[in-house]
């Protein structure tokens, strides 16, 4: 656990994650209140990274679940291992007939079999999927439900039960309940709106592109080889580019890539010529590159 908002920032920074005070406040509160966090924002601002860094800062396990269209309970919660059940039934055939053998009446055989039924529907034949895993684990973990907006609304409804009670019912075995609630982080790229019920249960965090100062800090931390001068030039240029009407704005990871590439290429200064030559590191569409070239006078100042 983090002791305060400031410590949250510090601990995350040790994991090489620069959190703004806003981010840190929400994370700190969510941990304190044991509430899930719904993180939204444009792609590539470090939503998933945040979850990873919280896990390693707190030194607890990260359980990740990637959402996609058609994801259902059996993939998210648990599944019976049918093949194993069948195999075991085959192997144990002798043993079974041994138990049943002495029984003459059909109803007697059934009741004997029922008595042994529990064997096949026990945890031995259960494959725990991420959510069950995070609940049955008796220590704190970070449960990352990534890109929840890609899942179906049925799945979202099912998540509600988990998020409010942190308990899971398996009809054949019983209810699993946890004393130590996992810290749940849901991320969304806003491909669709989440239901109000889900939002009500979560704290909400919107991460936007960082400010120039923050992004400089991030680049400085992740790509220390690039000097202060180059870092500043790169970040300022990226910020100017983001102001254009682009198909896809360069994300933080692309800023980092660019800085790394420039270091590898041995440049210490970002002059317009180099910048335009390496523009494809941050802009992924031909049209965007053309647009940036058109405005090159306003963008590449150095």
């Amino acid at each position, binding site marked *: 656990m983090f002791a305060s*908002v400031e410590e949250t920032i510090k601990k995350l920074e040790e994991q090489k994650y620069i959190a703004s*005070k*806003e981010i840190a*406040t*929400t994370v*700190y*509160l969510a941990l*304190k*209140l044991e*509430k899930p966090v*719904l993180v*939204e*924002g444009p792609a590539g601002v470090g939503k998933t990274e945040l979850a990873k860094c919280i896990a390693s800062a707190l030194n607890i396990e990260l359980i990740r679940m990637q959402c996609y269209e*058609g994801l*259902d309970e*059996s993939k998210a919660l648990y599944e*019976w291992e*049918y093949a194993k059940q069948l195999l075991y039934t085959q192997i144990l055939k002798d043993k079974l007939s041994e138990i049943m053998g002495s029984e003459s009446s059909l109803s007697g055989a059934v009741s004997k079999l029922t008595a042994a039924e529990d064997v096949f529907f026990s945890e031995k034949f259960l494959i725990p999927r991420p959510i069950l895993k995070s609940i049955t684990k008796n220590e704190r973990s970070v449960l990352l439900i990534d890109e929840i907006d890609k899942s*179906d*609304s049925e799945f979202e409804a099912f998540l509600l039960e988990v998020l409010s009670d942190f308990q899971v019912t398996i009809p054949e075995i019983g209810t699993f309940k946890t004393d130590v609630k996992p810290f749940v982080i849901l991320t969304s790229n*806003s*491909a*669709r*709106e989440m*239901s*109000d019920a889900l*939002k*009500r*249960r*979560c*704290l*909400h*965090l*919107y991460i936007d592109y960082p400010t120039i100062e923050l992004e400089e800090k991030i680049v400085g931390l992740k790509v220390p080889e690039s000097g202060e001068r180059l870092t500043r030039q790169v970040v300022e240029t990226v910020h100017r580019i983001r102001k254009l*009407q682009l198909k896809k704005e360069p994300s933080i990871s692309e800023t980092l890539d660019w800085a790394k590439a420039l270091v590898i290429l041995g440049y210490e200064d970002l002059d317009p010529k180099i910048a335009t030559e390496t523009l494809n590191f941050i802009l992924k569409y031909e*049209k965007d590159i053309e*647009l940036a070239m058109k405005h090159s006078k306003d963008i590449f100042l150095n």
Partner: protein
Amino acid sequence: MEKQPYINRKLFDFIEVLRDADIVISADEVLSLFTALPEIDIADKVSFRQALKTTLVKDYTDIPVFDKCFNEFFSGREKLFDNIDVSAVASLIANSNPHLIEELNDLLDQFLDSLGDLVMERSSEELLNMFLEELLPSSSGGAGGMSIFKSNNSIASSFQSMAEEDGQENLRQGIDELLRGMLSLKKTKRSIGKELKNREDYLLNRYIYQLTPDEIKEMRELVKRFGQKLKNRISLRKKRVKHGGIDIKRTFRTNLQYGGVPFKLFYKNKKIDRPQLVIMCDVSRSVNQYSRFMLLLTYSLQSLFSKVRTFAFISNMVEITDLFREMDPERAINSMFSDENFTYGWGSNYGRCFNQFVAEYSDALTRKTSVLVLGDARNNDNDPGIESFKKIKERCRNLFWLNPDKKHLWDWSDSIASLYGAYCTEMKEVNNFLDLSEFIDKLFVDI
């Protein structure tokens, strides 16, 4: 800790403000705010704001509204003393007990609460007089005030004594000023949300072509926010629609437990074809403003459609899809007018343009296409080109005409609205932003 109740009341006021501004806040959220607050240092503005934001605002499109309200609401103190003779107030505070301001503050809050909605209807001056009357019942000769003030007798009596003492004229004035300042500040604060909302409603309901340049600037933000909301809503609804073929993979997997006998069937969600859209905009002077907005909105909704082709016309039909792909809609529209081929001739000629469309662009029409025509159907007595218009109708799924003119003006002067209207799926009077978004919303239900 003793300040807690005051802060709480202030927060409830703020929550009211947010609700007035149309942000949905449930009891759950209020509860989590109050469990969160003790955990953070509320003197730290950034943390405080984020704690409020993270617990109360769940829709990121509401964040700008929240920020506006927050800044207005919690930037109080300095403004309070703006119009007040500071020296009078200072001597007042020096002469009386140090908690005077706080106590007055509490009294004012109680007073305003007891009035409810009346607060918004009265001017600050009226409110001040009412308040003083309540506080100093004897001075107005009236008998007895509200019970809340009786329980606060100490302050009332000290007040009274001050007021009655001779030679304290300027002190009394100081109090009045202070109260006036506090009252009007409180009044503005309580109405922040309502005013934002009123402003939005005003803009959304206003005739698009009557908007002033400043309002248009304001609208742009609004259109973006509303477009996003609309988009979210539509995409949520789209997911809900079901029915389709059997989902083999899932059916097999589930029925393994029955030895492969398909007891339970699962169906695929039917993929709904995203509609294709062809927009034809009349951009002649009479409807220019209108078309701009329509284009702006459809542009922000583009990802909902599988294909959008945009055409603009006055007397020539020109495809502007590529223009929109290259630059932001505002600039695209402006650059359109520098195209000579396009601005040739003055006054709309619908007939000629429809003929051109059929001849050159009919490949844009399929059974999945919805066609939107934006214009006032004022054809300047040209040939209406009905044959071509019929052809367009035959070849697309549905054909809507959005007409900015009021219904009783259709067919007036050179408008031939009902002539075209007869061949449309529907001709609709749409002249403000709300109608427009409603229409687009409906477009997705019909499909």
